[in-house]
């Protein structure tokens, strides 16, 4: 689940001017606080429920193993992405080699490959029945020792291959953008290139690396399907399995609270790694780090390494999916017109569209409300709405159920027979609510980044010209933050189309989306059947990567000029 908005925001927030501090717009402030409450409710519900049961802990068996597995997975993926992403960033920034310019931005592509799709392609190739093992057995005999692919190391490899672009992007930005003057100064003081890397550039890049690692860890923690293919039982999966498997509410809630602890730990870890260092350097004048030309086998090696990562993370799996999809279409042309496909695709798109529209609308109102003032409390409330993204879908799902159960009880206590009735369990309202809780963050961050570019004096001028808040929203703010709105719509739609556990937990009977369909088909090893819907998801997910391409190109031009 890509988060370019977060990447963009990382830089935009540095130059944000202080908003006007006047008061007197209580309704707009209240609205923002209201959204924060709405978004926080499911998470708070989980916490309250877990605390209430804390006296009689009812944690599932094998909890210790689950926690250990989660930790190992997160550390493994963290190290994996650091090595792949950081290494590639240094290679591409510090050296020139054939195809470097194209590879520099193509290396972002694996971000478009959801880990659960790469996961099943990977399994199909390397599993016991896959072509690789068959070949190995035919060469070395059936006794040959082959490590189990569907294991923790397998999951770490697959997730590192899809998540390294976060580290890659932020490291590259840090290497290129961090004050060229600093690099020049270090070089004139007699430091070699590699010494400057270790002693100057990396320490300066620490906040960026911390941010990238936090993103990676968060994605690892929220992953749901990949880990299941690989038989890796993380706490997030545990929540779902306990809930759906044994309908043990109490146990699932307590496990959810534990997952929340992990999320908080990641956020705290980022702060800690960042330390007090806030290096927001202005791109100054200077030569900066200039790429060195590689030749001979070293040049070929560099190109090969980049190609290998790109191939493993994107090109080969896409080709495999295409191969399956075409093969399946030829073998069974009727499957192309499978009415279920159109049905599920419509479900996915409609739910995604509604979610995106709601998220963008709420983000706009919040950004506008903040612009009108309100002080630290309202700003904190707005910040709170972005926490949902750090919470795994399964936990949000359980929180939504808990919240609705509480609402039901209240309504019945007030004399409304049946409470909310089938509103939640019988319709997609629950899914939509959970989606908004989870995806408000990317929408708000994109819209907020756009708001940050609108000078506060613009708002002040409009007010002094007699415009009331609603007119300012309509005639000044909305036209000016349109780019952010577009980005937000796209990001939320894509995240919503890829989302899996929320639908699995909250869907009404008979409701299926493309992502669930892929997951179910792949779980039952119907890889050929899963190929076409998987390709659709990859194609959709490629869209935000194009936004990132622009970002990378901007870095490149800055580099060349610098």
């Amino acid at each position, binding site marked *: 689940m890509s988060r370019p908005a977060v990447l963009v925001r990382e830089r935009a927030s540095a130059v944000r001017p202080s908003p*006007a*501090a*006047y*008061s*007197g*717009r209580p309704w707009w402030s209240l609205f923002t606080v209201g959204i924060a409450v709405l978004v926080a409710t499911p998470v708070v519900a989980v916490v309250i429920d877990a605390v209430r049961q804390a006296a009689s802990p009812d944690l599932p068996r094998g909890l210790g193993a689950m926690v250990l597995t989660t930790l190992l997975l997160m550390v493994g993926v963290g190290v994996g992405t650091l090595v792949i992403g950081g290494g590639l960033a240094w290679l591409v920034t510090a050296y020139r080699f054939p195809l470097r310019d194209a590879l520099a931005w193509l290396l972002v592509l694996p971000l478009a490959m959801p880990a659960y799709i790469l996961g099943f392609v990977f399994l199909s190739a390397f599993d016991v029945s896959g072509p690789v093992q068959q070949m190995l057995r035919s060469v070395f005999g059936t006794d040959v020792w082959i490590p189990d692919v569907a294991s923790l190391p397998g999951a770490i490899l697959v997730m590192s291959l899809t998540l390294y672009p976060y580290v890659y992007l932020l490291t590259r930005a840090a290497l290129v953008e961090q004050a060229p003057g600093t690099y020049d100064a270090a070089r004139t003081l007699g430091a070699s290139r590699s010494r400057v890397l270790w002693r100057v550039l990396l320490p300066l890049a620490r906040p960026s690396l911390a941010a990238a690692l936090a993103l990676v860890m968060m994605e690892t923690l929220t992953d749901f399907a990949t880990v299941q293919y690989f038989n890796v039982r993380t706490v997030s999966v545990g929540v779902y399995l306990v809930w759906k498997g044994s309908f043990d509410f109490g146990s699932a809630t307590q496990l959810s609270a534990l997952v929340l602890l992990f999320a908080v730990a990641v956020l705290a870890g980022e702060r800690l790694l960042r330390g007090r260092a806030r290096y927001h350097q202005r791109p100054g004048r200077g030569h900066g780090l200039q790429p060195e030309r590689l030749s001979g086998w070293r040049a070929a090696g560099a190109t090969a390494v980049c190609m290998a990562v790109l191939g493993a993370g994107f090109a080969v799996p896409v080709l495999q999916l295409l191969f399956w999809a075409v093969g399946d279409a030829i073998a069974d042309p009727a499957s192309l017109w499978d009415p279920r496909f159109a049905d599920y695709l419509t479900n996915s798109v409609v739910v995604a569209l509604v979610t995106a529209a709601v998220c963008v609308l709420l983000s706009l109102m919040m950004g506008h409300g903040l612009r009108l003032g309100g002080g630290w409390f309202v700003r904190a409330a707005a910040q709170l709405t972005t926490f949902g993204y750090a919470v795994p879908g399964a936990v949000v799902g359980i929180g939504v159920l808990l919240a609705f159960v509480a609402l039901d009880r209240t309504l019945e206590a007030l004399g409304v027979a049946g409470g909310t009735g089938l509103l939640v369990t019988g319709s997609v309202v629950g899914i939509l609510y959970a989606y908004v809780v989870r995806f408000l963050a990317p929408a708000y961050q994109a819209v907020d980044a756009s708001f940050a570019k609108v*000078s506060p*004096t*613009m708002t*002040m*001028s*409009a*007010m*002094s*010209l*007699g*415009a*009331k808040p609603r*007119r300012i929203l309509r*005639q*000044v703010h909305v*036209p*000016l933050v349109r780019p952010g709105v577009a980005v937000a719509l796209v990001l939320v739609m894509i995240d919503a189309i890829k989302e899996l556990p929320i639908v699995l937990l909250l869907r009404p009977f008979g409701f299926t989306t493309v992502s669930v369909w892929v997951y179910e088909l792949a779980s039952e090893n119907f890889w050929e059947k899963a190929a076409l819907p998987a390709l659709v998801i990859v194609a959709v997910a490629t869209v935000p990567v194009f936004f990132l391409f622009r970002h990378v190109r901007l870095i490149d031009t800055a580099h060349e000029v610098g």
Partner: protein
Amino acid sequence: MTQVPPSPPGSTRPALVLKDVTKRYGGVVAACALRLEAEPGELLTLIGPSGCGKSTTLRLVAGLERPDEGTICIADEVVADRRHWQPPERRRVGLVFQDHALFPHLTVAKNIAFGLDKLPRAERSRRVGEVLDMVRLGHLASRYPHELSGGEQQRVALARALAPKPAAVLLDEPFSNLDDNLRTKVRADTVAVLREAGTTAMLVTHDQTEALTVGDRVVVMRDGEIEQADTPERVFESPATRFVASFMGEADFLPARVRNALLTCEIGVVSTVPGWTTGWDVDVVLRPHEVALAVDPDSAARVVAVEYHGAFVLHTVVLGSGSTLRSWQPHAVRHPIGTPVTVSVVPGITPTLLIGDTAVTAPPL
């Protein structure tokens, strides 16, 4: 909101009143018991070092900040006090910012029409034409802001602020984004337009020359307090405090003592002080144009620096006591460094006297 009783015909009531206005940010006092009035049509300039509270004052008047204490009236109407609070959109105050803050998605004409939405269509376009003529930009009505030069953008911002006929226009360092050559011209144009429109205006600046040339009155601020609010001449020639003397133009200070109604200091008698009794110690403020030099081999004072400024040459002189004085000399006069000189006060000058940091005109009781 409270209506102050309507003014009797013929009398001029202040267009803008600040009465004991205080604003704090946390523990920092950004504005402290400000008292200020502006006559209708008057142009005030607010000046002071950064962080002195001049922009805060502007924001308080515009309604972008709410005062903690005090009363603000605009055009006879209380817009802020303990009980009342009018948001900026109801204050009839025009704003012009340093970054112009033109709406980038609207044409020049639509930018100006933004504040006229309550007028009928025909009247609206008539008024847009009127103010565009006033700033002589009628030919650019259908352009977008990014297609204009900095000076043109500044004029559009002014026209936009003036269009709804505000009770006062507030300008926050409106010229500091323009380069030096353009600034003088745009400044003159802006003042001309403000005069033509007859609007009360308050202009924040950090440029001393600008404050002195533009304002009917200059308000010098420091640490959230008004040090002096007076005509440019009085602010320059009779600064109220040591700070005003040194901030508005160059000034040196020499200790002096009253003896027989004469004020005597290291360079001799600087002025007569009738009514003063012998024995008072004061500091005398001397500006470089008030200090005369003459070569004198017997003098203990030495020229230590010479700066060529074109029309004038600035000489820095160290006196026998170690005190420093500066003196403007015509461009042809240039005493080499080390030249012994006698220093005196140019005849006809009545220098400002300070006791402590405050200027005095009569002996303290």
